[in-house]
């Protein structure tokens, strides 16, 4: 079975590819480039195409599938039209799949399920990453605020942090909010 994975996110495509590589009798093709997409898909001639739901090239690809109906093998959207739950799960996970007509549902279902799980895992990874980045940015802002206090009021680092904490408690705000306000105010007042 030839499986094409189309995803402009190379990271996510790799994650799915890794999962599918474990399956027997599957040849994988990963396409991340938008340019020449239709030509590439025509070359691959896949049995199944997995694609992220929001991919900007979906209209172009669906047009190609619609046209190729007139030629060799028609490609239908999704797997088993009656399997509403599987379709809904796929859409929720952000996966769209296109399958060659006549391919048995029991062959496709495990692949789709795997893709859905991998997409979900990728979403979680992204959310974790965003959170980590957010925390890192917050850390940097707090460090800058401490530095401003240390420089302007001759405080030690622990004293500077205590000031921030006190202000946060007094104002019912988070330390990061106080730090951001201080950094902004300092910039506006002509500081560096």
């Amino acid at each position, binding site marked *: 079975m030839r499986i094409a994975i189309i995803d402009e996110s190379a990271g996510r495509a790799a994650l799915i590819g890794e999962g599918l590589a474990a399956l027997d009798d599957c040849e994988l093709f990963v396409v991340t480039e*938008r340019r020449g997409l239709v030509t590439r898909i025509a070359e691959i001639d896949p049995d199944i195409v997995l694609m992220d*739901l*929001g*991919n*900007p*090239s*979906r*209209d*172009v690809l*669906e*047009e190609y599938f*619609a046209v190729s109906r007139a030629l060799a093998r028609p490609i239908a*959207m999704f797997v088993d*039209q009656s399997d509403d739950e599987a*379709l*809904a799960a796929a*859409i*929720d996970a952000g996966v*769209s799949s296109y399958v060659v007509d006549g391919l048995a549902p029991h062959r496709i279902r495990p692949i789709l399920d795997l893709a859905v799980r991998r997409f979900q895992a990728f979403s979680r990874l992204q959310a974790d990453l965003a959170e980590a980045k957010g925390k890192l940015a917050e850390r940097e802002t707090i460090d800058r605020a401490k530095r401003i206090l240390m420089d302007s009021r001759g405080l030690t680092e622990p004293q500077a942090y205590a000031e921030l904490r006190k202000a946060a408690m007094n104002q019912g705000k988070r330390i990061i909010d106080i730090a951001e306000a201080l950094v902004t105010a300092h910039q506006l007042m002509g500081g560096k």
Partner: protein
Amino acid sequence: MPQELAIGFLPLVDACLPILAQEHGFAEAEGLSLRLVRDMSWATVLDRLLYGHSDAAHMVAPLAIATTLGRGRPAAPLAVPFVLGLNGNAITFRCDVADRICPLPGLGDPNAVGAALAELVRERRTAGRRLRFGVVHRYSSHNYMLRYWLAACGIRPDDDVEIATVAPPFCADALEAGEVDAICVGEPWNSVAVERGAGRIVMASAQIWRRGVEKVLTLRESVLDEKREATEALIRALVAAGRHFVDPANWEANAALLARPEYLDGSAELIRRAISDRLLLARGGEPVHFPDFMFQHREAANFPWVSQAEWLYTQMVRWEGTPFSAEEAARAARVFRPDVYRAALIGTGEPLPGASSKVEGSLSGQTAVGTQQGTITLESNRFFDGIAFDPNDMAGYLERLP
């Protein structure tokens, strides 16, 4: 607590009404909170609608009909209770082709340009390099308007020329790279191409059909039934947004708003030009004023005329090559829901036509039409070839078309 409705859209200027309804508080005044869901392809907008990620969507009108009839997806009944706008598209050619078929500056005359194009098409066909056009989707007014014009000028789409699908944000790229020789797309994408020197705007789609149905508000029929009151409230909010949108006093602010990253993520300047019916046809030129280039409010523009749905169906079977089916035509007609539009606006100041269907393209001048409420004067709504579409004889109409 306002009721939330998720509205899917593509980053095009004619997605303006739902966006402005939310941003200017018209939705809130009707007890609604709109969550705008941005996507980059019609397939995605459609899937989200079908699987409940969105309650309603900005959509190319033919796609609502195609989906209801089971083209390209298993049949899913959709309903259109509101038209988001008429026209607002243009045909932009690569500069070298434009200079050949439209040598004088300004917008071309559809007949003259068509004749010159037909000659070029013959040459290219003989040379084995057919001209290639890009449209946004096979089920789009862009596709149908372009084909209507080409066929009327003696050019056979799919035979003498190729017509391919190109997503709007990539139209300028495709023109520049020579992947297509011309694009038919909505604003701001023609202007983006012009700005980059990738092409020249030769015609507005309004020159092909002066009041052509373009984007619509679509819901799953079941969702319309389930959220009927909220839908009617949404219609009222969208009408208010339309009134705001066409007021010149608001052009600048609305252009800046629509340009935001979460909406069109584009140039406020280009959007402002489109909103104010001004088009820069070629880089380095002066913008021309094309009245009613975009048409979102006047003359009950938002009324979902059943005849519009029927016209779209005739074009669908015309280019599919499938036989006309009276049964399918009836189902296509039922997609448009003037009854919901009326129910939403009865008792408000908004003009409501008396009829739900009309002969399309029959008016060459100002005509007062019968109303249930208010007054409506329609201006010319002609097709460039003067042929009118009478929904009472769809099969005959199809036979008469080239």
